[in-house]
């Protein structure tokens, strides 16, 4: 019988939640690395018991942890992320040049084919790769050295490379998103990159056709349709059907199209989930009601999913890497809040239940389906 493991990174440690295929009863282990921020955890699709965790601290910097037994035990691996060549500058918040400085790993994306290969998206924005199980990390410098790099600016939370989408058809195509530079894509395994932001709009950019400068919050792709991408932009939910060459607004009837995560149903490539947040000034749900919105039409038409979710006095946020789906049928959907709840639906979103409450603020949620 299949099992599900949910990896939860929080402000104060890592938690591992597991259930059998019925998803009725959940075991919780943790906190691992108590007191440290766990920005992101993700398991290898090739060897699911191999899990990567980004352990960070304002005091002690970056640690990378690897588990080879599904999160029961952990081993610190390499934590040196050295930019390759001259680091140069990007723009600081006030527009002045600022040297590129490594702060933390925001996101790990394990290879689809090799358990020893994993990508790391970091702040200040760059893409690193390890091919030796995390012991050493090499930058793919073509991204940071893009001709627009000296004009990239941080978003409010820093200039993080937070989303890495690997194309299941070819390892040469990688799409990444950076706050607040936008989307970039390589077709040659990371040697060269080009912006993929045509069609995006931002009230914060005076040039409506700006090539870069977009505060992309997250991207999602269904593996059966690698050319279709969904995006939660700072404001606006967007869709591309040409791998990011152009984007179309699909916010439709959402009560607010500000938000952070976006996810695609495991078995229905046109079923998409977002969690509207009232605004970038308030960072809590509209009308203090926590609602997941589902579109079964790939955008434009959205329905609120509320059963089991708090519908009054709710002021939590859901961060960009804090929603995930499992691959069971019916599809399970999971998200974690800054209030420490992990909510799950086991019927595509109609009914929700908290499988975990009172954790530290949740930074990331990744579901694994285990055979």
């Amino acid at each position, binding site marked *: 019988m299949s099992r599900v493991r949910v990896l939860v990174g929080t402000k104060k440690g890592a938690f591992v939640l597991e259930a059998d295929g019925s998803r009725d009863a959940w075991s919780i282990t943790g906190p691992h*690395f108590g*007191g*440290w921020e766990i920005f992101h955890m993700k398991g290898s699709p090739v060897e699911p018991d191999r899990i990567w965790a980004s352990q960070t*601290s*304002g*005091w*002690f*910097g*970056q*640690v990378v942890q690897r588990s080879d037994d599904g999160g029961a035990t952990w081993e*610190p691996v390499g*934590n*040196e992320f*050295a930019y390759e060549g001259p680091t140069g500058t990007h723009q600081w918040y006030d527009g002045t040049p600022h040297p590129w400085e490594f702060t933390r790993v925001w996101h790990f994306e394990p290879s689809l084919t090799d358990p020893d290969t994993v990508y790391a998206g970091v702040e200040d924005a760059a893409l690193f790769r390890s091919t030796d199980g995390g012991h050493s990390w090499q930058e793919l410098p073509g991204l940071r050295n893009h001709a627009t790099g000296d004009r990239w600016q941080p978003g409010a939370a820093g200039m993080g490379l937070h989303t890495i989408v690997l194309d299941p058809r070819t390892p040469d195509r990688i799409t990444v998103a950076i706050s607040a530079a936008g989307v970039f894509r390589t077709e040659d395994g990371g040697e060269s990159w080009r912006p993929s932001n045509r069609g995006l709009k931002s009230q914060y950019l005076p040039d409506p056709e700006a090539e870069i400068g977009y505060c992309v919050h997250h991207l999602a792709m269904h593996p059966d349709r690698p050319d279709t991408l969904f995006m939660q932009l700072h404001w606006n939910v967007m869709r591309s059907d040409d791998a990011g060459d152009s984007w179309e607004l699909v916010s439709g009837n959402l009560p607010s199209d500000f938000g952070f995560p976006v996810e695609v149903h495991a078995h229905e490539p046109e079923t998409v989930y977002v969690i509207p947040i009232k605004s970038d000034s308030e960072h809590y749900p509209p009308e203090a009601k926590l609602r997941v919105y589902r579109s079964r039409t790939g955008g434009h038409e959205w329905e609120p999913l509320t059963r089991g979710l708090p519908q009054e006095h709710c002021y939590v946020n859901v961060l960009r890497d804090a929603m995930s789906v499992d691959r069971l049928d019916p599809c399970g959907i999971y998200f974690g809040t800054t209030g420490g709840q992990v909510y799950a639906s086991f019927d595509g979103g109609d009914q929700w239940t908290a499988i975990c409450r009172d954790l530290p603020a949740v930074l990331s949620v990744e579901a694994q389906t285990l055979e």
Partner: protein
Amino acid sequence: MIRVVLPYHLRNLAGVGSEVGVPVEGRVTQRSVLDALEARYPVLRGTIRDHGSLERRPFLRFFACARDLTHEDPDESLPESVARGEEPFLVVGAIAGG
């Protein structure tokens, strides 16, 4: 043997108690003590000093013999009582964040 006291999170990371002993050959300075500490516990590399520059991470302090040595030259000799192993060299997480 030089005595080094680590903050809570670094003890857990290195899997040690509150105090460790590290051998230092030659002059006992901040740099030689931290070099020896990182050689003995490689997992601490990058957590006290930056990997490349070897500069102290901003929110860490170095104390010994009731003195704050944080801003001393890292190649200055540490107090004799630290070199003799009578007093520990303390790595302290700064109080920050409220």
